[in-house]
């Protein structure tokens, strides 16, 4: 079952998600091995495919490096749930077809290690550990269209 990795932090930035010392490559698999390294050196070791990152406000602030999204996606993280997202990171994620969830009271509802099941269509997170259902606002329609097409480049090719 997908597990939540909770970082009770605001402003988790792109330098922490993928430090610049690894930006000499854009290979997703290689970037993934350093995912979240400057925030939590053990992140990659303890993360399984489908797991979820949970954080506070302004997640992904800083650089425009899409490498941050690729590192997270490459580490097979299913989504990031945060109180708010920084603008460029949010936009990059949509462009890559990577779904993000905004949840203002996330720390009350999700604890570290909780097992979650997410229904993106319904906008519903089932917290299997606490037994609670948590609803969230789905992304706006234009973003859903881009994600459904598999990212911005497919989307504009279609147009």
């Amino acid at each position, binding site marked *: 079952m997908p597990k939540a990795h909770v970082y009770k932090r605001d402003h988790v930035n792109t330098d922490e998600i993928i430090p610049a010392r690894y930006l000499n490559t854009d290979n997703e698999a290689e970037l993934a091995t350093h995912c979240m390294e400057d925030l939590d050196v053990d992140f990659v070791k303890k993360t399984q495919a489908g797991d979820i990152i949970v954080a506070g406000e302004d997640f992904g602030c800083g*650089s425009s*490096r899409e490498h941050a999204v690729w590192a997270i996606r490459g580490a097979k993280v299913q989504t990031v749930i945060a109180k*708010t997202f*920084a*603008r460029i990171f949010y936009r*990059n994620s949509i462009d890559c077809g990577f779904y993000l969830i905004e949840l203002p009271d996330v720390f009350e509802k999700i604890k570290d290690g909780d097992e979650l099941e997410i229904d993106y269509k319904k906008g519903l997170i089932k917290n299997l550990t606490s037994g609670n259902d948590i609803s969230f606002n789905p992304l706006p329609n234009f973003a859903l269209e881009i994600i459904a097409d598999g990212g*911005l480049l497919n989307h504009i090719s279609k147009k």
Partner: protein
Amino acid sequence: MAMTITEKILARAAGKDKVRAGDLIDANIDIVMCHDVTTPPAISMLKEKGIDKVFDPEKIVVTPDHFQPAKDIKSAELHKRLDTWAKEKKIKHYYKLGRAGVCHALLPEQGHIRPGEVIVGGDSHTCTYGAFGAFSTGIGSTDLAAAIATGQLWFKVPESIKFVLNGKLGKGVYSKDVILAVIARISTDGAIYKAMEFVGETLADMSMEARMTITNMAIEAGGKNGIIGFDDVTKAYLDEHLTDKKDYTVFESDADAEYESVEEFDCSKIEPMVALPHLPSGGVAIGECQGMEMDQAYIGSCTNGRIEDLRIAANIIKGKEVAIRTLIIPATPVIWKQAKDEGLFDIFYDAGCVISAPTCGACLGGFMGILAAGEKCVSTTNRNFVGRMGSPKSEVYLASPATAAASAVEGKLTDCRKYI
């Protein structure tokens, strides 16, 4: 309908009479800025999708800067991909080593930035160009690929926050101190998704270089763009630097335009500031942190690596010896030559500083000036996140070139006013 300058520029770019905050638009892009970290992946994506087109080889500006000159084999490969593509696509404004410089210092200097235009770049500090009354914002590689291929991008028209900067700056206080004070007040997400419009008499006295330091850091408050209206100072700079296409349209905010909020600053009360680790919003007056020992000083970057910054630093360092490792990185070859011709290199050399070729280098923890665990660096750059300049256990203190220079001389955070 009354509009802000940001709304007017975006309306023009979308081919509409008016837009308002919240509208989704498809905007035509006037200039796309490309560098060595985010553009090679964009090129690969386009190849992979079989999209061979470049919307306009005259409107794309390419300058490798982050790892230039190539710091290792992998970055050399990035540069090679960029080089092959730029040549193949006949990119008109491709700055190679020797002409390349830190992107946000290079583009205005080389006359690529015009008021009223929409500029995007694969770099978060692309917001710098807003100092010229342009709409300018940073994007990631996928957006960059889309912009390169189509010359268009979708935008949500941002709400604007007006920052009114009043009062004359005191001795030893610079635009860097002003923007650090602004971010300290509103926090690193205080302007998230918003346009930060700067107005007021304090700006009137500032050079374009000084204004660019302010808009450069809009992203550090989460802003989508930073913007400053056009005036005589803007015009004089453009007259000197625009070579290619000298026409442009000037927009200004209507007096009754709508703002999400208005923040007023009495800049005469601002003191030299230092942003303590690990957020750019950690700004405090120098009095609260002076005496803290440093291991390195870094004077350079797109925030403060321009000629004016080097002159300010040289004035303080002149005739003294620096107490710590001090790196001087002119942001572009033109600035480098100017500094040399003005004799600034002699001053820096005599004081024991090292002077490098134009590069982003250590600003992003890339190379040349990386910090070891436990080390502290006073830096004229714009970010002090964990690990920004090296070890995750090192620390970066953001300050003006004057504060960095005075601190280099004493080896500890120092009030620059005693040297001015």
